[in-house]
């Protein structure tokens, strides 16, 4: 068995003195897709924030076996974890192209940058049309595309996405998930996906972790989760 790309053991997180996560265990396999499911306030966003070092956290977090639990957000990003935060994290006053260039900011090797830009624009042709436009004027869906593209330009080994479907029209959601699948398949980028839309997430994921009030309530293969009655009734709605 190969080392998972990301492994969290006993992950705890805190907002000030309030504990928000209680000993979470989960993994993301190399080139795999793990979905974090759960209701509002269960701790999904908090989990991503803890992994990125944006909030106080404890526990054993490993990227390809290397402990990253004590590193700063900047260093974690530089090691190859790209985090598309909730709200998309757009640099609203900068242009689309500047937003994208920031994704590649830490890359030492700028040789393939042009190719990478072309690849990103092939995924999202709309961004190419708007490259000189101020990013704050993009629609929600376009900003989500921009956030994903910015993350892809980091050349990450793990891409963490916080509710990429949030607030988007169904057609836009479909397009974005199609491209996430392509990024996973063609570029070998592992995904850790936080989603409220469980059925969408389970279609893309191979593993799923169900979080309730900051604890892992259930985890397993996406197929097993999908056929589990309690998950189906509570999160899939049929």
């Amino acid at each position, binding site marked *: 068995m190969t080392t998972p790309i990301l492994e969290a053991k006993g992950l705890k997180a805190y907002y000030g003195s309030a504990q928000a996560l209680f000993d979470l265990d989960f993994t993301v396999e190399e080139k795999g897709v793990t979905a974090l499911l759960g209701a509002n306030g269960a701790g999904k966003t908090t989990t991503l924030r803890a992994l990125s070092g944006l909030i106080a956290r404890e526990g054993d977090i490993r990227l390809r076996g290397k402990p990253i639990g004590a590193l700063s*957000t900047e260093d974690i*990003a530089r090691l190859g974890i790209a*985090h598309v935060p909730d709200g998309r994290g757009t640099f*609203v006053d*900068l242009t689309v192209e*500047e937003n994208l*260039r*920031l994704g590649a*900011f830490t890359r030492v090797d700028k040789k393939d940058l042009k190719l990478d830009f072309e690849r990103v624009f092939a995924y999202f042709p709309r961004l190419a049309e708007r490259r000189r436009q101020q990013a704050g004027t993009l629609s929600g869906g376009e900003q989500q595309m921009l956030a994903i593209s910015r993350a892809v330009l980091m050349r990450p080994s793990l891409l963490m996405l916080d509710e990429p479907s949030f607030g988007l029209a169904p057609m836009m959601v479909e397009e974005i998930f199609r491209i996430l699948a392509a990024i996973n398949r063609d570029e070998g980028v592992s995904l850790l996906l936080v989603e409220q839309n469980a059925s969408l997430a389970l279609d893309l994921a191979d593993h799923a972790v169900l979080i309730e009030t900051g604890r892992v309530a259930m985890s397993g293969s996406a197929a097993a989760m999908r056929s589990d009655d309690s998950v189906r009734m509570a999160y899939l709605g049929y």
Partner: protein
Amino acid sequence: MNEFLHQLASGLALGGVYAIMALALVMIYQATQLVNFAQGEMAMFSTYFAWKLMDTGWPYWGAFAATVVVSFLGGLAIERLVVRPFAKAPVLSSIIVFIGLALIFNALAGWLYGYSVVTVDTPFSGRPWFGNVYMSAHESGAVLVSLAVLALVYAFFRFTPLGLAMRAAAQNPTSSRLVGIRVGWMLALGWGLAAAIGAIAGMMAAPIVYLDPNMMGGVLLYAFAGAVLGGIDNPFGAAFGGFAVGVLENLIGAYVVGAETKLSVALAIIIGVLVWRPSGLFGRRLVARV
């Protein structure tokens, strides 16, 4: 008419100094939403450093370059050692730190160099340039240097990856960290740049207003008035405001209130702008959601 043009021209010369000083204020304001009240005293201290180098025989441009570099490093060090520990403190604490810094530099300059007024050389001496009878050579040179600084700063922020990263860090620190930008260092770099720009402002102002430990007190006030007038969140507005305040100050000082009370012009501008147009001429109106 001649007298009027003369006043206008020398207003532009000092206005250039105010403009780049305002730019230094804006640079730190954009990243931290704080006005560095020590910016003037830091610039004054840098100017003494340049004066001391020249006093020991350095050529002007050598001393100029060395002062800019040392001021940059000094600004960097001040952010790292003094300002940083208060990054998460309430606004008032930071303001007290800035005022403390201003007092320290003022006292240090007095202690090291004395309180008597000294004259600082200018690299632009001799006959007025281009047959321009309304401006001395130094005034022309100061305007050119100010414009050059503005152009360089613009090019740096607009066209270099580091400049882009600094803009990003000021705008959205969290997203910046998530793409691997070391936001803390970007802030320190901002302080270094502001200190370097302030040093240039000081060196350009000194031959006009003469150097003593309180030289930059008035200059900072005019620069602040310029920044507020143009819009403190807009570098170009602030630079424009600096030039405008320089000209206004000179004209109103000469024809309306008299030279002794012209500092009140700056205060009137600050209060007037804050009352009637708080975001300044080119600033963005901030709407806070409650």
